[in-house]
């Protein structure tokens, strides 16, 4: 059992713990930024796709449909590789920040842009599902009251849309947190990448001068546990919201057995 003891002794090293926790923080920041920007972009895309009916706005619809379909049907890693090469970086990331060098910051920025681009395609489809759930009569009612299209969207349609899609959006947050691990492929400093880094240097920290299977189990076990705790708590929230919705719906719907929508809105 001495190899296991060596592996476990790594977890008592405050430097390693700090390193991992910083990784968790980066994972959370990256995911939060990705989700927030994606919701903004995705909403615009969904509105473009759903309400561009006239000939003049047809081009907007074409743009949005192309964007959504292209990003939904190609891998995230593909966009990360592309952004690492082609994405321009603004000046403010080109300096040491958050304890990272300017090179790492640029990489972080580029990879996050890729994650935003990819996630916004998925979120656009989620928002569109919500838009479709708002009865069309409400738009007409808004028009009859003299609202402009922008006002109808802002005051009538979007509030209901977002209320309807909260559970699906939260599931997407889980997916985004998982997807942020793809950034490890280009050595961005988040949880997954840091775990791999520690593993490759484990021989220096476990006091055995060699990397053993137990190191793999301990390090990836810790990382998996962290991901699990974060994601499982979000999915518990999703379930609570859905249960509450279901109890309200049950009286109206002839389908009381309507279940959690993971299957339908799956996008992980």
């Amino acid at each position, binding site marked *: 059992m001495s190899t296991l003891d060596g592996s476990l002794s790594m977890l008592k090293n405050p430097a390693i713990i700090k390193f991992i926790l910083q990784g968790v923080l980066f994972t959370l920041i990256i995911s939060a930024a990705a989700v927030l920007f994606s919701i903004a972009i995705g909403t615009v895309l969904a509105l473009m796709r759903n309400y561009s009916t006239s000939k003049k706005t047809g081009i907007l619809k074409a743009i949005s449909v192309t964007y959504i379909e292209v990003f939904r*049907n190609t891998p995230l890693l593909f966009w990360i590789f592309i952004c690492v090469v082609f994405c321009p970086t603004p000046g403010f990331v080109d300096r040491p920040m958050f304890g990272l060098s300017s090179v790492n910051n640029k990489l972080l920025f580029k990879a996050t842009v890729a994650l935003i681009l990819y996630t916004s395609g998925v979120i656009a489809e989620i928002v569109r599902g919500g838009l479709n759930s708002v009865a069309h009569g409400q738009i007409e009612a808004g028009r009859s009251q003299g609202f402009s299209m922008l006002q109808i969207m802002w005051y009538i349609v979007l509030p209901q849309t977002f209320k309807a899609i909260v559970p699906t959006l939260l599931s997407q947050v889980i997916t985004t947190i998982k997807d942020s691990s793809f950034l490890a492929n280009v050595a961005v400093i988040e949880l997954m990448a840091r775990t791999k880094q520690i593993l490759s240097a484990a021989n220096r920290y476990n006091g055995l001068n060699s990397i053993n299977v137990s190191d793999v189990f301990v390090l990836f076990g810790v990382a998996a546990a962290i991901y699990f705790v974060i994601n499982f708590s979000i999915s518990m929230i999703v379930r609570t919201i859905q249960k509450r919705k279901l109890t309200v719906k049950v009286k109206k719907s*002839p389908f009381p057995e309507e279940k959690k929508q993971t299957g339908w809105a799956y996008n992980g």
Partner: protein
Amino acid sequence: MSGFFSPRAWNKIWIYRGTFLLGLGNTLKTAVFALLIALILGILFGLMATSNKKILKSISRVYVEVIQNTPVLLQMCFLYYALAFSGHSPGIIVTGCLALGIYTGAYMAEVIRAGIESVPKGQFEAAQSQGFGYAGQMFYIVIPQSIKVILPPMTNVIVNMIKNTSCLYIVGGADLLSLTYSFVTGENTGGSYAPAYIVCGVIFFIICFPLSSFASMWETSLKKREQKVFQNSTAKEA
């Protein structure tokens, strides 16, 4: 985007087309075997989740939650390094098939569970009263009804699995995307970034787009049908 229109770069792609075909082959191979594993696991755990035994239900629950709440990349790394450091490395593609199969299996299990649960409980009881066994129930009554509910989300799961074959990159990579990456960064072949990525992206798109649009079309038509049923039933009530 330099080299986007350069015939030299495109020519290089044509010379090295074998690389892309090899990558495509590996991606498809991984996807097919992973799909087989995922289907087996999905059916197994999906049936367990809908059984009456509490212990089977909770085993299936644990599998689904643990796998769905951790990244596939981490699972793949874990599997690869655990096998490599214990001295029996089975190779990149086998590892990829196993990890992707296990990951996708969790989603399959959820899809299949939801499909089986979409069949009203009374039908199981009716079937039992008619003397159907468990296999008979599933085969003659549940599967024919739930298959139309299962197929669209299952197709989405498959599309995501095909996209996730790119995870192989982290364990050494032999799939389409990894080979594209090593092509554009390689010493002799490097440089033609834009054309190479366009080829790679187009291949992924051609595989995934028909599948995902099939799934969403089917889903919309199902929803419309459901709405009709809803309207009819409310009309009757009124």
